């Protein structure tokens, strides 16, 4: 059976097999491998099999490796792409994108399809390489980086004959969008603007010309349901955040549909890019909670009925379970322990007790703009039915200002200072949550901050790494730590599992991030050693032990 399609049970199957073909594992974004050769009984025997050093130490290795037919494809923040023998680490080819003089380098990964390897660049090109040779086949400019200051850091999503990609820089004065290009030729197929233009439904939720600069960039990677032919994506918060007077209609009801379609989960027709439905998680997101993150497609029994759902979390830790056919809210829950931006959320998703930033005044908000969780992904195991997620307990002081938009300029209208919440000794945790009941099943605390993605496997294991360099495996049912390995550098990437010739491998990128969350962690924990790097480590059971 192909991964990512409907299995014998009729439920969507988002498990990977020998390959790890997409950013989120399959297009359903579970980050779950059906391989079980490595399991709770033998994981303690895991050993490193091969190591690959990229040599590109700018902002470490954050990408999710892609594995297809025994070949691994990995990209560095400077857009150096490597094809490696996934069993041995032998270099097959490498490609170097010309150096770009632009800030905030990061890259979440490549996409592989149609005999090509696709990736986005910091200067805003989408590039296609020949999968066999690494030769450049086509490249096209998505938008003028000199003008918008935007770039592409997300892994593209391949959907049938198209490659879909959004742009980063959601906190700038620009109008976010997703663009689909034909995989074969690079020609544009469709573009969907997050913010509707004049005359389009939703534009009336914007004050004056603010729609032109309202942000909302869908800057991460979406999901795809082949049977429904719908693409799912999270959109960023409106710009500016912390100050809304220039973008919301005076007297607007903040309860629903403010500044559409920012801070939302959207479903688009895969062929045309037409909006099918939207669900706005944080109407008038004044706190930079950004809803741009992974959309996990799973089928679950809810209140006695099998539902096709999409599960999604934003940086506030607010997590919604939506019917992915209609966008109907089925369940909502909040994950972090420290929270003061709202006092609660009703069953129908209404935010209660909004703690709004005030112009010129310094207030403390929890969670912080760095997120209860940021772009690093959760994982979902159909065996346990749990979501696995890292959560940071962090606040920030914010002093709002009323800076006006200038095209391409930063538009995050607050001076921000991260702050540890009082009366705690640990500031993050790895949790298992039941998305149906919204109940936390287990939680493993950690002293510092966690920023790597989760990987779940059919061996009932959950893998992730910490900034001190430990890459570890937890029992997916209990949270017990079963194995840990010091990789030498912090973890800010996304681990995967795959197999070659019947042997299961676990691969993890390493290298802590210097800026943003990494900078915050260095400031808050000056005594700790969070090391940068750019190395891929691959583990397996010893030969003969499998």
């Amino acid at each position, binding site marked *: 059976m192909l991964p990512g399609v409907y299995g014998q049970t009729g439920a969507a199957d988002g498990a990977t097999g020998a390959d790890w073909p997409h950013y989120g594992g399959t297009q359903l974004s579970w980050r779950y491998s059906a391989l079980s050769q490595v399991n709770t009984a033998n994981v303690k025997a895991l050993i490193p099999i091969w190591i690959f050093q990229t040599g590109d130490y700018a902002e470490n290795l954050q990408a999710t490796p892609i594995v297809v037919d025994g070949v691994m494809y990995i990209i560095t923040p400077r857009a150096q792409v490597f094809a490696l023998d996934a069993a041995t680490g032998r270099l097959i080819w490498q490609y170097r994108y010309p150096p770009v003089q632009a*800030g905030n380098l990061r890259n979440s990964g490549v996409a592989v399809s149609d005999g090509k390897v696709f990736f986005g660049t910091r200067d805003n090109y989408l590039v296609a390489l020949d999968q066999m040779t690494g030769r450049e*086949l086509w490249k096209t*400019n998505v938008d003028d980086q000199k003008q918008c200051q935007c770039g592409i850091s997300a892994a593209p999503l391949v959907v049938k004959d198209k490659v879909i990609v959004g742009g980063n820089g959601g906190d700038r004065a620009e109008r976010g969008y997703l663009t689909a290009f034909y995989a074969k030729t690079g*020609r544009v197929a469709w573009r969907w603007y997050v913010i509707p233009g004049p005359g389009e439904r939703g534009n009336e939720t914007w004050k004056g010309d603010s729609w032109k600069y309202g942000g909302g960039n869908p800057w991460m990677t979406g999901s795809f349901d082949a049977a429904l032919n719908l693409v799912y994506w999270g959109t960023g918060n409106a710009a500016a955040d912390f100050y809304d007077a220039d973008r919301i209609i005076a007297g607007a009801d903040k309860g629903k549909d403010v500044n559409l379609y920012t801070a939302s989960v959207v479903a688009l027709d895969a062929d045309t890019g037409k909006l099918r439905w939207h669900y706005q998680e944080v109407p008038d997101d004044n706190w930079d909670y950004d809803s741009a993150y992974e959309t996990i497609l799973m089928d679950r029994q809810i209140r006695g009925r099998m539902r096709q759902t999409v599960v999604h979390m934003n940086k506030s830790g607010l997590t919604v379970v939506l019917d992915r056919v209609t966008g109907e809210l089925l369940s909502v829950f909040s994950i972090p322990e420290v929270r003061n931006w709202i006092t609660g959320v009703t069953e129908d998703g209404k935010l209660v007790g909004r703690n709004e930033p005030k112009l010129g005044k310094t207030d403390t908000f929890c969670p912080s703009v760095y997120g209860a969780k940021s772009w690093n992904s959760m994982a979902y195991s159909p065996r346990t039915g749990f979501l696995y997620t890292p959560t940071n307990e962090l606040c920030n002081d914010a002093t709002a200002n009323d*800076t006006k938009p200038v095209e391409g300029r930063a538009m995050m*209208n607050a*001076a921000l200072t991260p702050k540890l919440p009082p009366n705690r000794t640990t500031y993050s945790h790895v949790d298992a949550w039941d998305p149906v009941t919204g109940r936390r099943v287990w939680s493993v605390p950690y002293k510092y901050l966690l920023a790597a993605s989760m990987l779940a496997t059919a061996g009932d294991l959950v893998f992730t790494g910490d900034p001190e360099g430990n890459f570890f495996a937890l029992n997916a049912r209990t949270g017990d730590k079963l194995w840990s390995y010091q990789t030498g550098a912090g973890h800010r990437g996304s681990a995967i599992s795959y197999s070659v010739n019947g042997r299961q491998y676990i691969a993890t990128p390493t290298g802590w991030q210097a800026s943003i969350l990494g*900078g915050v962690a260095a400031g808050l924990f000056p005594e700790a050693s969070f090391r940068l790097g750019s190395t891929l480590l691959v583990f397996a059971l010893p030969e003969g032990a499998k």
Partner: protein
Amino acid sequence: MTRTLLLIAAGAVSFGQNLPDVLKQGEKVFAETCATGYCHGLRGTTGGAPRLVGRGFDPAFINNIVTRGVPGTAMPGFGESLPRPDVIAVVSYVASLNGVANPNIGAAGSAPAAPEIALSPGAARGRDLFSDATRGFARCSTCHELNRIGISVATPITQVPASASAARSLVTPHVSTATAGSEIMPVLVLSNTTRSVLLYDLTASNPVLRTLEPLSVKIAEGSPWRHASVIGSYSDAELDTILMYLREVVKP
């Protein structure tokens, strides 16, 4: 060595403005530009970017970083995007955070960026239309780079069409026709060697730079492609305004 020299040069120049006012302005610029978002935090204490308090930075070093940025990091150069007085103020402010009692950076580091060409109000409107982001790919800057904005797909503009209709009916001699398998496409050929053919495919509204096998593609002179097909989002009045802009900035 360079840093020392700059510091000496900086010390030799007097500051025209009252220092407390400069520091106050610097603190404001810092709060709105540097402390925001994922960056340095209020008063440079802590944030997503490095702490700036008490690092032993001298004014020339700070000025260099503020003006040029740090390549490969999130730190942009503000030499062109901030007015020079704001750069001076914010550098003085950050220097004060580093214990420099009398920051005086008027001549430190690089000179301010060359001023942009002063445009008439009509030409300024034309410049905005030239790169109007609300048009997506259907804007001039998708194919033309001018005055540091746009993608240089086409050769630099050296002649300005006389009128909107002349701009529409422009026939470029550079566009030819490529046939590759079942594809027939209007193209701009960049290079054609025995190893590869590099060309811009102009079929869709986004030009695609494609690398093709020489044996798989045939290039023929001429094409039915017309400039009118890519500037359809502009009215005649808008094109006239863009032409005003071109007349003021295009160097024949």
